């Protein structure tokens, strides 16, 4: 049995089955809170714990799945290309809003961390939590944060963004798809963008471009502000 679960095909098959199962569940129930990514993560963590399968065994196949993140992110270029006229038309609001969002994210982390009595290393680890992982790790270590906590914060933020963004769009009455896309990409990077892509092509394209813009803005702000 141990040899079977250590085979890289096991985690891949498990991930595909679980994810597809929850995707069908969401499609049938039409409840956006039943996010397939979130539920699959919870289910597989539980599964690995119950059958005491080490994370290394999961990662043997997990690494294969993660490898597709790079070409999937690059594919956003096609969405952006299809909506390029919109991007050209709205470049001023997009640039300004990415800046406003990045500043809000970094400052609100600082204020809340102080409120909860987090020390400066923990605070520094959380400051870049709204940008995509490689940028966040770099900014975090530059501010003397703890990279592995940063990774956790980035992933949790992304998943939260993917789950709650359809609700936030309704609450804050964001009727314009471009505005919704930029907001999703700025607050929850690529994981949020995976949800934006499901909402529509304009949302996906605007969210994709915002990951890049707010990432660059966050790097520059971290150099200036801290």
């Amino acid at each position, binding site marked *: 049995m141990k040899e079977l679960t250590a085979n890289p095909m096991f985690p891949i098959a498990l991930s595909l089955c679980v994810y597809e199962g929850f995707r069908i569940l969401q499609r049938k129930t039409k409840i956006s809170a039943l996010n397939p990514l979130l539920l699959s*993560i919870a289910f597989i963590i539980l599964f690995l714990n119950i059958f005491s399968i080490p994370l290394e065994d999961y990662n043997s196949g997990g690494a294969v799945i993660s490898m597709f993140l790079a070409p*999937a992110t690059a594919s956003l270029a096609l969405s952006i290309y299809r909506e390029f006229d919109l991007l050209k038309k709205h470049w001023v609001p997009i640039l300004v809003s990415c800046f*406003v969002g990045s500043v809000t994210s970094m400052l609100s982390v600082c204020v809340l961390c102080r409120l909860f009595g987090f020390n400066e290393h923990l605070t520094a680890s959380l400051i870049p939590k709204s940008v995509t992982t490689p940028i966040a790790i770099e900014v975090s270590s530059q501010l003397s944060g703890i990279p592995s906590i940063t990774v*956790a914060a980035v992933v949790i933020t992304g998943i939260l963004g993917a789950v709650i963004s359809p609700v936030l769009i309704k609450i804050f009455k964001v009727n314009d798809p471009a505005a919704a896309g930029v907001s999703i990409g700025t607050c929850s990077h690529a994981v949020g963008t995976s949800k934006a892509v499901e909402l529509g092509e304009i949302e996906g394209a605007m969210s994709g471009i915002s990951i890049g813009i707010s990432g660059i803005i966050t790097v520059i702000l971290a150099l200036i502000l801290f």
Partner: protein
Amino acid sequence: MRHLLQMSFLFFVCLAGEGLAKLLPFAFPGSIMSMFLLLLLLLSKIVKEHQIQDICDFLLHHMAFFFLPAGIGIMEKYQLLQGRIIPFLLICLLTTVFTFFTTSLSMKLIFALQKKGNDNERTDC
């Protein structure tokens, strides 16, 4: 065959993106660099949409799935946050809501301003 060709091309773009990102004086993700590179190739018409659309649309459609291992990796980091897990989650949630709110508000305000500007221009004429 068509799909394999598209996939190999996309992987080449990604490798080129990783290489270009390494050349920058600051850390920049290779995947985002590949995104800009592919956009440039599309805009300059060196690559046509139909030459990559099957594989790109497939990956975009299933993008969330590829984040699954990253999410499961969090289980290892649980101990790092002993006793702080609730404030940690709360900070992640609240700042995400704040950021979404200010970003969308900024978009809406600028759209409204631009619209007003356009209307004024029209009345001026």
